[in-house]
């Protein structure tokens, strides 16, 4: 049967990829095989049809897969449409009364052949993305039978990227082909080595019965790939670490202001983050109710200022009603704000319920891309960019605006600032509002990657304090470095020590670090630091 298959394939090759004239004669044996009662014949027919290049092939194989292909006693094939009418499988012409038909049955072997065959068919699809996927599928399940189809597809492929993938699929198939020459095999090994990745490594390692030179080349390629994979793994860990770091940074930047600049320890900071996440939820609910669906992607950009304002206003209220009575008493502030965090959590639980709320990721933020062995999801990428943007915006506010100037003045010398006519209570309230508002924006980002629940903030509060303490109090650059370093260390420890133990190790390391450098990585020096 393989011989038949080859003949068919060669015919196809000789005649050219898209020669419909040739199809009639070329596919007849395949169609005949399909009408057989023997599963072996059917499977072979499927394979032959798949590589035939016949324009009807996709329809026929699809019908077979869907259980809509029927055979007549004279081996003619018919496809039953969804409305119960039949068309002639070979020509596509409607068949008014096909007569007595029986369904062409499939077993597992036929199903496998169908999958492979439909895959090969997609090599010729008009859409380049579909062709690329087809090539990848063939790569994952290499089949020497597909080599002719691949050859034809490669010859006619206009897209260089897709072509490369097809060549890789072909190389994988060559290595499985019993009668391939040693030179071809070595070339195939080189192609797989060049491709890289876990799948290529698996294929190379799984090779058996190869000539010694090829086996040797394959082993060398595997170890080379292992090295590559390890590098990519590190890169991936670094990426995850960067992503975690950006989340920590977002949660900690607001804290860097309230704790770092004002010296106010706000245990309800995590709840400001939580409020931001719920603001996102409410914005999305309103979008669904009142805004055309086409604009739904804007819900996140709209939620950012909303969350900032909501959390900021709550922050100002907290400062005016509570914290201003506690300046200079950090431990009391800690207790009062802890109480506040309990109230806020319970309030949100009462209003929105204790269960998680669904916040969607808009289409433009979802998806992922692959860079070599590195998987990069877009929402994480956007969060990193957002964190960097927030950091720089905050620095600009602190350095360039009148509010920033007054904030710094009040921090450095409250009485002198008051004497200069700065309304220090007003500055205090706005500073606290700014820090809380930034926390609210962090909540928007977190809503994209974490569960939006009343406990959302709790998971980040200790980590955020750690970041601020680690980076050095009152230093935004330190906060950024601290966040990234903690994030990366966390993610590098995870595979070695496991997620929980990794966290413990980080905590212990951090405790030891604070022992050594109680004022963080970038301490402020001089008398001011000792005040």
């Amino acid at each position, binding site marked *: 049967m393989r011989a038949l298959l080859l003949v068919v394939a060669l015919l196809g090759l000789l005649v050219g990829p898209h020669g419909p004239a040739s199809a009639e004669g070329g596919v007849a044996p395949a169609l005949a095989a399909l009408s057989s009662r023997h599963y072996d014949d059917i499977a072979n027919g499927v394979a032959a049809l798949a590589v035939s290049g016949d324009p009807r092939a996709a329809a026929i194989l699809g019908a077979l897969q869907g259980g809509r292909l029927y055979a007549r006693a004279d081996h003619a094939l018919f496809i039953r449409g969804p409305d119960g009418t039949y068309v002639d499988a070979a020509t596509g012409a409607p068949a008014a009364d096909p007569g007595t038909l029986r369904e062409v049955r499939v077993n597992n072997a036929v199903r496998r052949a169908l999958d492979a065959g439909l895959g090969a068919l997609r090599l010729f699809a008009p859409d380049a993305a579909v062709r690329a996927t087809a090539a990848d599928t063939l790569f994952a399940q290499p089949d020497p039978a597909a080599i002719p189809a691949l050859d034809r597809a490669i010859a006619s492929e206009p897209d260089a990227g897709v072509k490369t993938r097809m060549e890789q699929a072909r190389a994988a198939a060559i290595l499985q082909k019993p009668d391939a020459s040693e030179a071809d095999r070595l070339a195939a090994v080189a192609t797989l080595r060049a491709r890289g990745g876990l799948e290529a490594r698996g294929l190379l390692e799984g090779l058996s019965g190869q000539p010694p030179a090829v086996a040797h080349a394959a082993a060398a390629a595997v170890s080379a790939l292992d090295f590559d994979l390890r590098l990519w793994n590190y890169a991936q860990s670094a990426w995850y670490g960067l992503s975690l770091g950006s989340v920590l940074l977002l949660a900690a930047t607001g804290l860097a202001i309230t704790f770092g600049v004002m010296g106010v320890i706000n245990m309800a900071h995590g709840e400001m983050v939580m409020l931001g996440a719920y603001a996102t939820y409410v914005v999305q609910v309103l979008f669904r109710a009142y805004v055309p669906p086409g604009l739904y992607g804007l819900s996140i950009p709209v939620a950012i200022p909303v969350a900032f304002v909501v959390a900021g206003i709550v922050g100002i209220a907290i400062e005016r009603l509570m914290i201003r009575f506690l300046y*200079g008493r950090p*431990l009391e502030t*800690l207790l*009062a704000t802890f109480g506040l965090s309990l109230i806020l959590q319970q309030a949100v639980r009462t209003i929105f319920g204790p269960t998680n709320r669904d916040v969607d990721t808009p289409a433009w933020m979802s998806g992922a891309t692959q860079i070599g062995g590195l998987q990069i999801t877009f929402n994480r990428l956007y969060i990193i960019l957002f964190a960097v943007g927030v950091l720089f915006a905050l620095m600009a506010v602190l350095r360039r605006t009148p509010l920033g100037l007054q904030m710094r003045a009040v921090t450095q010398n409250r009485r002198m600032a008051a004497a200069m006519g700065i309304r220090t209570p007003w500055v205090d309230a706005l500073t606290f509002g700014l820090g809380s508002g930034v926390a609210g924006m962090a909540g928007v980002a977190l809503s994209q990657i974490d569960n939006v629940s009343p406990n959302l903030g709790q998971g980040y509060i*200790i980590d955020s304090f750690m970041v601020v303490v680690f980076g050095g109090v009152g230093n935004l650059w330190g906060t950024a470095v601290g966040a990234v370093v903690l994030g990366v260390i966390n993610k590098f420890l995870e595979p070695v020590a496991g997620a929980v133990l990794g966290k413990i190790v980080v905590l*212990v390391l951090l*405790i030891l670090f604070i022992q050594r450098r*109680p004022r963080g990585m970038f301490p402020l020096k001089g008398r001011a630091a000792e005040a």
Partner: protein
Amino acid sequence: MSPAPRALAVPLAVPVIVTGTAVLVAALALGGVAPAYIVSLYGKYLCYGILALAVDLVWGFGGILSLGHAAFFALGGYAMGMYLMRQIGPRGVYGDPLLPDFMVFLNWHALPWYWHGFSHFPFALVMVMLVPGLLALVFGYLAFRSRVSGVYLSIITQALTYALLLAFFRNDMGFGGNNGLTDFKDILGFNIESGRTRAALLVATGVVLSLQYVLARAVTRSRFGKVLIAVRDAESRTRFLGYRPESYKLVIWVLSAVMAGIGGALYVPQIGIINPGEFAPTNSIEAVIWVAVGGRGTLAGPILGAVLVNFAKTLLTGTLPEAWLYALGFLFVFVTLVMPKGLMGLVRMRRRDDVPGAAAAASAAKEATG
């Protein structure tokens, strides 16, 4: 004037009330006048009173706001829990003569080395004090030596208990993971479920709390206690007088941890379970609010605060579970904003006492800013 005789005179009011109420509750329950459950309920309050007293020693007198003291309480509890587990013997569900049920369930074949010895009560008793004490010693030595203080210290104490929480959740730690240690059968040969054993445990808790109160009073009124208060209010000044604040803090820190550990050890047989939830940072912070409500820098205040707040918690969680967290939250805000000296502060306004601690408690944190 000379304070020496006063330090010797132990006022009996607090020990009498604590032990007396414990005996009374036990007797009422044994006599069938009161429901049986109030025995372990009151026992729990008194154990929390022990924890509150320990927190107050470091916070009210040493200026160290620990947000991780429940860790020492829980460690003492685990040490006692390990003893109780070993007492189960072959009566577990799996009937293994040596291994506790959860180890059989995890397919372990031998007792981990750190479980050895816990079948002996005196050994467990030593561990109840030694484990929290050693942890406090190492942690405190590192922290105080490098002059970590104020909110920084508070945060790393919270990180400490958080790390322990995560660690004890792990099954391979060998402490029962998520479920902790439970299904205890007996203690010192007495059935742990029986009313008499429970009554005895309650009275024992009352006596231990009274003894700890007497000890705490002696320590805080000694010259050591005076130095400690001086360290709390003006740490750098004590340094220029030639004192080493770090060693004073370390002594009170370790003492407090040991006291908390004993509290945990009494807690476990009365509650019947110890699990990693006891390490939750919230528990430590709740202990701080008991102290604040009662009045920090006093010794009777924390005990009063622990009993009252937990009584309120029992009432509210029974009737209006939602309301309890609101109430607790408002309690934090109210006490710090309006009543910084706590209930004892209200008492003191009528009867001005001469205890140095309470008077300046409000300014205690000033220097601790760091």
